């Protein structure tokens, strides 16, 4: 039992990791089957875990209702909205032209688009607060931001006709160099964490204790 709890998961992670790693260098049909086999299985696992996740969501809101915490009425809305959607969705499917499809088009999509659009407000207020030349680094951020921002709209032409050329230059040279450095560093870090996981050195994800 102790073996199943401790050593077995580590060994399983090693075997799976090595198998999928080696597979990447084998072009044969078997290796392709292995890949699609694994991802199909992962989809099934996620499907089961989704059931667990939904139970967690419902439990969280049921708890609020049961304990009558402030605003528990809203939790009732979430529960009802979920239940009616899943029932309609499973019976009629979620294609356009079904009740669930209608709800998707007229409830889900507008709310999604609106939340997305609030970014226009937030980006303005974030720019206002953050673009202050408090330090030399902040000045670099501020100048690059202002030039690129204004170089992208027609009024940039009023200020200087070279502004949009210069803003493209910033995007394609110093900015690209910065992101390249970030990506190279991240790639190395990801390699290191992969090695630690495959060789069982990194086991936080398995929890601890018993």
């Amino acid at each position, binding site marked *: 039992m102790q073996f199943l709890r401790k050593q077995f998961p580590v060994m399983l992670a090693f075997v799976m990791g090595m198998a999928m790693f080696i597979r990447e260098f084998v072009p044969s049909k078997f290796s392709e089957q292995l890949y699609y086999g694994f991802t199909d299985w992962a989809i099934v696992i996620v499907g089961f875990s989704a059931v667990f996740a939904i139970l967690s969501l419902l439990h969280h809101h049921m708890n609020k209702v049961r304990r009558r915490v402030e605003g528990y009425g809203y939790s009732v809305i979430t529960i009802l909205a979920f239940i009616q959607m899943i029932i309609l969705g499973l019976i009629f499917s979620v294609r*356009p032209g079904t009740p669930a499809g209608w709800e998707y088009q007229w409830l889900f*999509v507008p709310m999604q*688009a609106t939340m997305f659009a609030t970014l*226009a*407000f937030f980006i*303005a*207020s974030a*720019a*206002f607060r953050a*673009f*202050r*030349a*408090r330090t030399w680094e902040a000045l670099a951020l*501020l100048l690059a931001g*202002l030039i690129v*921002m*204004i170089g*992208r*709209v*027609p*009024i940039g*032409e009023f200020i200087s006709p070279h502004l949009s050329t210069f803003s493209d230059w910033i995007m394609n040279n110093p900015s690209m160099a910065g992101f390249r450095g970030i990506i190279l560093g991240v790639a190395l870090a990801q390699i290191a964490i992969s090695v630690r996981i495959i060789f069982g050195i990194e086991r936080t994800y398995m929890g601890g204790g018993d």
Partner: protein
Amino acid sequence: MEKVQKPSFIERFLQLDRRIIYTLVALAVAIPLLFPLGLPIKVTPEVQSVYDMIEDLPEGSNILMSADFDPASMPELYPMMKSVMRHIIRKHHKLAITVLWPNGPNLVAQCIEELKQEYPEWTNTVDYVFLGYQVGGAIVIISVGDSFSGTFPKDYYGESTDGMPIIKEFNQLGQADYMVMFEAGNSGDWWIVYGTEVHDVPVGGGVTAVVAPMYYPYLQAKQLNGIIGGLKGAAEYEKLTDVPALATSAMDSQSMVHALIFVAIVLANIFALMLVGQKRRQAREEM
């Protein structure tokens, strides 16, 4: 120096409540939509070349259009699709329209309806055919290389495409003299790789600002003859066709908001510098 009074105007400006900024942004977007300002727009060469291609083709040439986007990209792509379509109608070209994204066809249908009110003589099945959506992505593109009527047995309105007057002259990707695609994702890659490169059809693209960087390499490689990028590109095309519409006013909104943010940031920095100066002076006086 007992000056613990109300914060000065400068200090209050630097601590500006975010809600005031939100209100200003909302106004800066809404007002130009109501009354377009008509700020000057400079046409970039990549938009000009799409326009020139449609303009210079002899009247009655075959043009294929693919609208591969959904309502999420409508603010950017719908206005440019509409003005390109209007340009095609004016030049009396034949037009076939396909859609590779499942939620796209309604947008095209809406665009056609609106243009028909402007140009009542523009006739379905003769001047244009709206083939609608077909599943399969790249397979659809390979298949239209063979025939439109085979790939789309029925058009969007449920009519059989076989035997339509337009289909008699224009039934293959290869017969197109030009193609314009409107892309919010990577379907354009498929069009280039499996379609226009294979059949040697020149192609121009209208793309959202987000995916534009993906398509510029094709422009450099001359696999695209032009790009209409984002709202700005749409506004430029409206200027070229001389019908300022949604994109032009949206571009005015953009300019307004950008100017607002720009001025606010510049003022904030000047004020912050002034405040630092003030504090220093005060400190010196106290000494």
